[in-house]
Every structure is written in C-alpha cells, then in structure tokens.
C-alpha cells in the first residue's frame, strides 16, 4: 500500500499564469525513496512544498496513510523537510535546533536528550550538541538539518536539493550516508534534485519532470535504458538524438541511413555513445571525425554528419581514430521516437 498518494495535483501561482505543477499524480510505497528529477523550473520544488504544506494546490488531492492532508498546515503534517539552504536557527545551538520540535510535542527533557543524542550519533555528529550553527562546516550543517527532521520520526521525509551548495566530493559522500540512513530507518522519502547521477545512484524510482508534468516514472536502470520520450533520453546520461525521416523502412539523415522498421514519416533516432561502434571508411564514410579525446580507460570521438550534426561515440581504442578521418556508424542499440513517444527499440 502506498504511504503517500498524490492525485491530479496542479498548482497555478496567482501572479504569472504558469502551471508550475500540472495534473501530477504519484504513489509512493512504504520505505521507498523517490527522486524528482528535472531541469530548473520544472516544478520539483513546488510539488515538494505542496507535500510539506508550504504551498496549497490549486486542484487535486494528497493523502498520507489514506488521510487527506491537502489543506493541512505544515505543523499538522507528518512530514519532515530538509531545505537546500540548511535553514537552521542560528540563534540556537545544535542541541536546541533538534530539541525544538520535541519540546513542542511536550516530550520529557530526559527523553529529548536521549533522542537528540541518538540522532546526532546517527548522522555522525555525536557530541556536537553544544556547537553553534555558525561553527559547523557546510556538510555538518546539512547533517544537522537532516537530523532535525529525523528526530521527529516523520512518516515522509522531504529533501529539496539538500547537497546543492556543497562541493562534488562532499556531495557524493553525503548522498551515500543519506541513502544508508534512509534504508536503515526504512523512511519513505521524496528527494528533489536536478543532478541525474544523484537520482540514478540513490533512487528506488525516478520521476522525470518537465514543465510541471511527468515524463516518465520508473526504476533508475529502466529510465536509463528505456527512456520513453526523447526528452528523458536527452536528459538522463549522454544521448545522440538525430532527427530525420523514415521511408520504406530506412531512416536517413544527411548521408547516414540505417534500417528502422516503422511507418514512413519523421522520426528521432536515439543512440547512446557507448552503444555506437565506429569503423574507419576509405571513401569518406558517413561522418568525419572532429576530435578524439583519450580518457585513459576509454576514448570519446566527436564526429560530424555531412550536415554537421554532431554525434558522440565511445570507443575502447581511441588511437585508431584521428581528426578529419571518415567513419561509418554501426549502432548496437537504437531507439526511435515520433510525436514525443517511443515507437521502436532494438
């Protein structure tokens, strides 16, 4: 049974007539971590803030454990939010930040002390209770913010790009820590990010959003291998998207053609760089190598079709290719889209 259920939720901000969230539906299972992934302005934060109670949906219904929470204020919801800018209360020390919510719940002082110390231990900050917020590093502040939500044992944990302000290295470490804690506590989590590697490495399921709508909801590996729309294909990982026409079962674009068993008409061909083999061609070939980059473990070849459409291919022996050389393309796996939908995969 799903813990959180979002049904047909829309949000139109009174100023400006954008549909920040547009007829969005999602069911999140108990203990599941769902990532909301999408470009800037796609409505991820707005959706998360509606679940937390900080925005009111224009229409639609949200339930937690079957109970309608659509109109409840934040303080009445069993949700816990971690903000991008830690939003810790700078006039209180770490202990007081964590104890505030417990005090409001009239928990006894002994119990507060026990629970705060327990959760500080959990986020790796045992003994930091008396520190001021300003005396912590960025990563530590984000951990305290996480602990502040966790200590109240919310039914649903909401995280809005919690690591966005941290450096790459720290981000990766915290990502793992949060995933560990989330799995240990089996806490149902909604996680907003616009970093695809964050989503791919953490999520049980990914919701790819665009202009307030869902493009695809699937497990990370499925989203990566079987993107349902060209937008998802282009947004997750690197993807060559080549627009062209199909006639008599042959897709063609500027001297490049490949069999594509679909009806005649326009089509967008999608090929991952790692699924594209190249062969040297004597007679000019289908494309010309523009640049070869050697990464040690593999190489990346940038090549241009005859109309200068840029295509990337990953090769294991970059020294076999050099700039200006003609090549033929031998894709091992392709997908094709028409009218924003998948029409063929092989």
């Amino acid at each position, binding site marked *: 049974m799903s813990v959180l259920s979002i049904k047909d939720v829309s949000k139109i901000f009174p100023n400006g007539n954008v549909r920040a969230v547009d007829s969005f539906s999602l069911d999140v299972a108990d203990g599941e971590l769902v990532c909301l992934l999408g470009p800037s302005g796609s409505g991820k934060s707005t959706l998360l803030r509606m679940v937390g109670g900080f925005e009111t949906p224009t229409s639609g219904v949200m339930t937690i454990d079957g109970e309608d929470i659509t109109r409840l204020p934040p*303080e009445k919801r069993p949700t816990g939010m971690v903000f991008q800018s830690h939003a810790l209360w700078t006039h209180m020390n770490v202990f007081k930040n964590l104890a505030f919510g417990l005090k409001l719940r009239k928990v006894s002082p002994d119990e507060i002390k026990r629970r705060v110390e327990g959760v500080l231990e959990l986020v790796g900050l045992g003994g930091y209770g008396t520190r001021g917020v300003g005396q912590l590093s960025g990563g530590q502040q984000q951990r305290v913010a996480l602990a502040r939500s966790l200590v109240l044992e919310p039914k649903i944990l909401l995280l809005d790009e919690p690591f966005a302000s941290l450096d790459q290295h720290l981000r990766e470490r915290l990502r793992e820590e949060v995933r560990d804690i989330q799995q240990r506590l089996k806490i149902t989590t909604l996680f907003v990010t616009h970093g695809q590697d964050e989503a791919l490495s953490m999520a049980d399921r990914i919701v790819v959003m665009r202009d307030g709508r869902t493009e695809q909801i699937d497990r990370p590996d499925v989203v990566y291998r079987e993107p349902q729309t060209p937008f998802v294909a282009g947004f997750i990982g690197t993807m060559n998207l080549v627009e062209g026409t199909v006639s008599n079962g042959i897709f063609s674009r500027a001297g490049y053609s490949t069999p594509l068993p679909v009806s005649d008409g326009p089509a967008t061909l999608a090929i991952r760089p790692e699924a594209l083999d190249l062969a040297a061609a004597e007679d000019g070939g289908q494309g010309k190598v523009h640049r070869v980059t050697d990464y040690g473990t593999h190489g990346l070849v940038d090549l241009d079709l005859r109309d200068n459409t840029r295509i990337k291919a990953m090769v294991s022996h970059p020294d076999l290719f050099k700039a200006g050389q003609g090549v033929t393309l031998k894709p091992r796996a392709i997908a094709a889209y028409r009218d924003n939908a998948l029409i063929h995969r092989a």
Partner: protein
Amino acid sequence: MAATLTHRKIDWTGIAFAVVLTLIIVFPLLVVGTWAFTNVWRYPSVIPQEFGLRFWEQTLARADVWSSITMSLTLAFTVTALSAAICLPAAYAFARLDFPGRNLLFFSFLAGHAFPKFGLLVAIAGIFLQLNLIGTFWGVVLIQLVGTLLFMIWIPVAAFQSVDRRMEEAARDVGASPLRVFWSITLPQAGPTIAAAILLSFVGTFYETEGAWLIGAPQVRTLPVLMISFINNQPVIQYGAVLSVLLWVPSFIALLFARRVVNSGSFARGFGG
C-alpha cells in the same frame, strides 16, 4: 623594513577631520559639563574660579526637577511600550503580508516626517484642543507616539524582511504554530535590530521637546521643557547646565546598549548589510 616604514604614511586629512569633528562635538559638551560643576566662573578667566556641586544641590532640591524627571521617564516608557505593541505587529505585516494599499500605508508613515514638523504640530494641537487633550498626559503620549512611528515601523520592517523565510518554514515544519514561529524564530532573529529601534524611540521620546511643550504645557512638564524654561527665565547658567548633564544619562546608557547590539553583527544584517 624601510619599505614598510615609508608605506605607513600619515593620513593628515583623516586626522584633521577627526580633530575638527571632536572639537565640534566635544567642545560644547565640555563647556556645558564644566559649567555644571562650577560654583564661580567670571570673565575673562579661561577656567572657573571655583569648582563645586553647589548648583547640583540646588537643582536637585527642587520639586519641579524631580517631578519632571519622573514625568519624562513615565512618558518615554509609556510611549515606547505602546509604540512597540502597535508597530511591531504592523511591521511584521508590512514585511511578510501582501494586502491592498500596503505601499500607500507604508509611505504614509513617512509622510509625517516629510513636512516641516512644527507646522504639523500646530495643526495637530488645533485638533487636540477640540478633543480636550491639550495639557494632558495622554495628549503628549499621542503626539510623541506619532514621532516614533518612523523608527518603529521602518527599522523593524527591514529587520523582519531580512529573516530567512526558510527558517520560519522549518519551524512550521517541526510543528510550531505561526504565533510560536514569530515568538521563537522571527523575533529572536530580528531581535538586535529591533532592540536598537526600541532604544532609539525611547531616547528620542525622552528628548522630544516641541510636541511635549506645545501639547503638554504648562501642566505636563518634561525634563527638556523644564530645561528650556530654566534657560529662558534664570540668569544663572548652571541650572541649565546641570539639567543638560542629567539629560545625557539616557544617551550614555543607550550608547552602551547600542555598542553591544552593533558589535553582535546582526544589526548590519538587519539593514541588509
């Protein structure tokens, strides 16, 4: 070594400024301060012939001095407390809520200070006369309250606006009601700046003379009003000087507080610094 020495050039313009400023500010204070502790000082001597506390004794022995001190303190406390009770919630509303006529109302608080004050006071006095408020305590409270609106709205609005919205939302998130958020998060965050505003309005009210004189005289006599009448009616300079020194006390206390507030750094933040 030589390089560092030549680089440490003396900033003569800076020093000149400092000296001139010091003279302009400190010299009159010095003269008044000296007069207050002088028993005899006749022309052309540069320093008084006889120092002493004779005029302090005489001044402090007067009943009207004590009653005016009490009056000034009572007025300043009443006005500041009322002003805080009215203005702080209003400032919060201005900072956080959007309602029709918000900007117009906001600028109307400024309007009172945009025109020559005395003319405005005379007009208000006319109205107060009809309301039988002339010469009453509450009449003076009312007129001085108007004078504090600028500080007590403008500064706290800036302070509230600088409080991170996410902090308030985080407090709602852990279960605090809007009122509790205001009390436990917003107010402490904006605290130092608001304390400065309250201090300013207290000191400003304590020194306020025109309104107190125009509306309050002769029944309500504050310390500054009394000082003016001393200076106007008494040939003895020392009376005025002693009262003047007495009037410095709230300023000094205010300065001490202000130092702590300004040092805490959140004061500048309140102004968006």
